[in-house]
């Protein structure tokens, strides 16, 4: 189904990838921990390595929970597909897309 309108109805998405240039939005959820009410949303360069992304963005946020231990993160998934993090690969190389959701457990 499409929008019923009086005239042509075609408007660009307000948060499309091109507006973020070489960056993108990436969501990260700590599954099974409701302390953080929702997944976090980060703006990260596509060329950022996984190691940097985790150390500079995920760890400082997750450390808001005093029980967080950065070495105990596991069971990583992109959407619902499991992946093995490689600290040297970039987000783009790992297949992370604009507005994708990454999940982990501890």
């Amino acid at each position, binding site marked *: 189904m499409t929008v019923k*309108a009086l005239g042509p109805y075609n408007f660009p998405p307000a948060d499309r990838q091109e507006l973020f240039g070489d960056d993108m939005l990436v969501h990260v959820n700590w599954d099974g921990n409701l302390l953080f009410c929702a997944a976090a949303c980060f703006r990260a360069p596509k060329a950022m390595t996984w190691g940097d992304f985790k150390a500079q963005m995920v760890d400082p946020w997750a450390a808001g929970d005093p029980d967080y231990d950065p070495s105990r993160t596991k069971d990583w998934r992109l959407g619902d597909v499991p992946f093995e993090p490689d600290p040297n690969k970039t987000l783009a190389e790992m297949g992370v897309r604009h507005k994708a959701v990454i999940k982990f457990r501890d």
Partner: protein
Amino acid sequence: MTKLSMKERYHLLTRDLDWTPTYVAPEEVYPHSRYEGIKIHDWGAWEDPFRLTVDAYCKYQAEKDKKLYAVIDSFAQGQGHLGLSDASYVNAVKLFIQGVSPLEYQAHRHFGYLARHLDGAGARFASLCQSLDEIRHAQTQIHTISNYNKHYAGMHDWQKMHQRVWYLSVPKSYFDDALSAGPFEFMTAISFSFEYLLTNLLFVPFMSGASFNGDLATMTFGFSAQSDESRHMTLGLEVIKFMLEQDEGNVPIVQDWIDKWFWRGYRLTTLVAAMMDYFLPKKVMSWKEAFELYFEEQMLGGLFPDLAYYGINPPRHVAQAQAEKEYVSHQVYWILYQYTHAAAFNTTIPSDEAMAWLTESYPTTFDRYYKPLWDKAKAIEAGGGRFYNMALPQLCQVCQIPMGFTEPGDPGQICFRQSEYEGELYNFCSDGCQWIFDREPEKYVQAWLPVHQIYQGNCGGATIPDVLAWYGIAEGDNLDYAVSTDKTSWDEWHAKGGN
């Protein structure tokens, strides 16, 4: 001249002033009333709940206004705010002026548009009266609450906040969605869903909350609006029945709109759920009880069996809303609590007494899922901190609430739904919001999501102070109630020997 009956006056002064255009086709005069696919064969069949003429309308409303302004003036002069149950109650008033009053104004504008664009004289006149009601409601609310603004934080820039602040994008986007639809969908969204289906969940909690917590002023504007609201309810039902009776082909269109606007409206009421269970120092009833009474009994038990006659089913996704009554208020307040550094109200950890009430009101969920979170927040406070979430949250593309809702059947697991449209990903909090997006993706790709706008640099800057300044949130508006200016002032006003 003999005196005319009310009915004759109404007929002469409203419907009899209508005429059929002959120089141009009706569809040129009323270009907006056909493209949605709703077929109307006889506008004369419209039963007008506003059997009033403009002069009678003005006379009634002037009387009500006089009474209301007398009460609010006396409340202000007698420092009535000092008699509230507690200053933390005012957070409910803040949510109202920031989130609800601007909607009254938008409703005023859009009913004015309908008063021009509907073909039938009865429907146009009903819209005109409702447009006038809505501006009166906006004005009385602003006037009443302006008294609180003299003494409490968070109410000085509500118009700007409504346009900009993240949690206020929830009610704003609901209305924007309706305003940008056609006239019949707007009436389904606002007159039916907002003013009929969910009205008792949206407004009664605020007004009963006012009454239980010593807020005579807010209670009085509630009463002053009550007779208008019952007319609006009647109009909401009339709109639906009119469409259903005019043409069988309208039934599936109306069903789709009921499905959409039930879920949109229900998601909006979850903010009220958090207000009821957590903001009010003296509780009226729990969200769960309110949902059972005002929605399950009155609507699912009363309204929908009547609508079944027309071939209308209860809203799609209603079962999810029913399941969520056990926990949704806790999830939403937990969101508000951890983002209070970016909000124009104060939250705090519930007192032991409030916690006991929550346990009792939600026996199957509170102690299992939410009390442990509060225990952790308490432990963080005991260590000298306060739990604030320092990352921006993922937002739902449709309802725009941070994605803190859980999977059907599992309150322990956050719910994620995702659709791809023209090469971009979109995320949703629920099957209901995803279904709404998938029906009209071209519409919702335009959503102004506060988090994504902050990251594009459109909200004043990159730091929290930059964004708060752009929001119009000043020192004292945000943070925990324990350190709020409201609490400090309240304690001073009530200190022994204080003045």
